[in-house]
């Protein structure tokens, strides 16, 4: 590999082990120790382990969805920075400034498209990451010491919610019709909570109507509070992955193989113990350290991380050239678009709130409360608690379609499919007055005002 860092003339490996021959590190190490040095002395790589199991790096195990999510988050920060200079969070000027970004500023529409596509992509990637972790039972602990993968799962669920909130708060900022009515519907769901609902809504939007106070609240949440939250939780998430001994997949070898005897290697420090030649100590190695199941993080893990990250950035960058971001008419509190739809990732909830108003005699429970608060609350609660409810064997950790988890995988997939189906109905089939229109049916002509 030609990615060697140019040093002052590279010295040959010294004979005395344990002596650090050079200050800098290499992306194409010539020995295990150089590979270890690359991890230990590089700020960017210090979060990586020195060695990583081959199996856990397989594209077909994790699909690298976590890395892709992180890459999209990085891209969102980078593309959000120029937008921060251009966007004005005031109801008088927000729409005009987004219009300027879209039509006046050089590359403005591309930057906005990158930000928007990365945001939608992050919702998808984080959701798929959660689906993958569930289906592989990767939230389960296995044979390693001090594992608490269930907590990392909880962190992940919280980060999914933060991702949705980030996307939703960003949705309001252009202050167009799409934004205004999606947020009207979204915040009214909060006000359907019995007793405290109206107060919660007032706190959320800073008043009784969606106005300047709402815009500045959503803006600060979008650019400071929520990204900070995701950033901190992301670091915590990564730290836990290391503490838990890597991906759950990495433990398959440890589970399946007994520790075995391997020959002492002269470059390892135990030869320093003064053991005479020919009397090498017997080493019982876990499979995790065995050379046939693991590789050095530098360069293998670094290379794959780079491919996933750069690939994600490249794909989003190219998509942004071809997919324009919508900007509707300026927000108008007097005219509700027909139909008025929430952002696509909330459409399954909009479908549910449409159908869940419960009437028992004269007693009526608003569908907005049942479908917008109770049902999603139960779903998130169940999701969060699942690692403690899943009683299957630890051998099912890190295995796609483990037989011990067949039933829960099927139920989980059915819920996921149900959510996707409702999302599809909301996106494609709902027309004026929220009636069902098949794709081949034309929508009737309805005047915007009476």
């Amino acid at each position, binding site marked *: 590999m030609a990615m060697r860092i140019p040093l002052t003339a590279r010295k040959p490996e010294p004979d005395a082990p344990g002596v650090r021959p050079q200050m800098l590190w290499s992306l194409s190490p010539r020995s295990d120790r150089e590979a270890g040095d690359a991890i230990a002395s590089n700020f960017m790589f210090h979060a990586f382990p020195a060695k990583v199991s081959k199996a856990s790096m397989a594209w077909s195990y994790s699909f690298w969805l976590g890395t892709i999510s992180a890459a999209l988050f990085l891209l969102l920060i980078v593309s959000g920075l120029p937008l921060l200079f251009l966007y004005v969070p005031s109801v008088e000027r927000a729409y005009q400034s987004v219009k300027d970004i879209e039509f006046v500023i050089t590359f403005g529409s591309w930057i906005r498209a990158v930000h928007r596509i990365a945001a939608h992509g992050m919702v998808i990637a984080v959701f798929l990451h959660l689906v993958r972790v569930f289906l592989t039972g990767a939230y389960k602990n296995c044979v390693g010491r001090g594992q608490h993968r269930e907590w990392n799962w909880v962190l992940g669920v919280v980060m999914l919610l933060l991702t949705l909130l980030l996307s939703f708060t960003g949705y309001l900022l252009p202050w167009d019709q799409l934004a205004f009515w999606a947020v*009207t519907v979204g915040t*009214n769901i909060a006000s359907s909570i019995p007793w405290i609902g109206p107060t919660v809504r007032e706190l959320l939007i800073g008043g009784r109507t969606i106005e300047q106070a709402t815009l500045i609240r959503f803006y600060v949440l979008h650019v400071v509070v929520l990204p900070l939250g995701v950033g901190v939780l992301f670091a915590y998430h990564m730290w836990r992955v290391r503490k838990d001994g890597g991906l759950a997949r990495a433990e398959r070898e440890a589970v399946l193989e007994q520790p075995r005897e391997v020959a002492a290697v002269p470059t390892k420090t135990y030869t320093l113990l003064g053991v005479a030649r020919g009397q090498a100590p017997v080493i019982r190695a876990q499979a995790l350290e065995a050379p046939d199941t693991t590789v050095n993080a530098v360069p293998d893990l670094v290379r794959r991380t780079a491919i996933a990250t750069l690939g994600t950035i490249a794909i989003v960058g190219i998509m942004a050239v071809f997919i324009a971001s919508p900007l509707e008419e300026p927000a108008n509190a007097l005219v*509700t678009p*027909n139909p008025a739809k929430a952002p696509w990732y909330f459409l399954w909830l909009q479908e549910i709130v449409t*159908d*869940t*108003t419960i009437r028992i005699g004269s007693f009526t429970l*608003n*569908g907005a409360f049942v479908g917008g608060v109770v049902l999603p609350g139960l779903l998130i609660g169940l999701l969060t608690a699942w690692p403690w409810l899943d009683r299957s064997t630890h051998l099912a950790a890190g295995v796609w379609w483990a037989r011990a988890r067949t039933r829960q995988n099927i139920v989980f997939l059915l819920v996921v499919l149900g959510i996707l189906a409702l999302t599809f109905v909301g996106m494609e089939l709902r027309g004026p007055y929220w*009636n069902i229109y098949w794709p081949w049916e034309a929508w009737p002509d309805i005047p915007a005002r009476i």
Partner: protein
Amino acid sequence: MSDAHAKAPPDRRDFLLKLGTGAGVAALTAQTAASLRSLVPNVSYDSPTTVKLGLPADFPDGIKFLADERLFVFRQGQTFHAISAVCTHLGCTVRAEALANAQTATVGGSEVRLTHRFLCPCHGSEYKGDGSNVAGPAPKPLAWYRLTVSPDDGQLVVDLADQVETDFRLTLG
């Protein structure tokens, strides 16, 4: 000396540690509470709830939609009443749709001609001409608001904070 001396300080140290920790926690709590309280608005700059709507003579017989107030004003001769256009499900603005055949119904003890029904574009809730919810997720009828006549210039005035029963009518003499 050393024994007595060695025993006493840990108690004082312990006390001071607890005092310090407690003070720190109290200070943090108070500052957090103060920061959060500042986000609760004390003054509302929302539009006022009592609005002049115009002279009664300007209202046609039948129905008139006022976009700014999101309100339908009904007139039958000299009798007026007003129904909110805010859907009770999630707050979208409902639309009036003229019925092919107007009906007459008894609402709140008196006869009312129902010429329209109301449909919500957000989730398909449907209301009858008197505001009662008949289909869709809407949990309750559209709100009726009190109408009065302004004493200074004779305009109709609605109070959007004063909800009334469906027997409310404003009859001008």
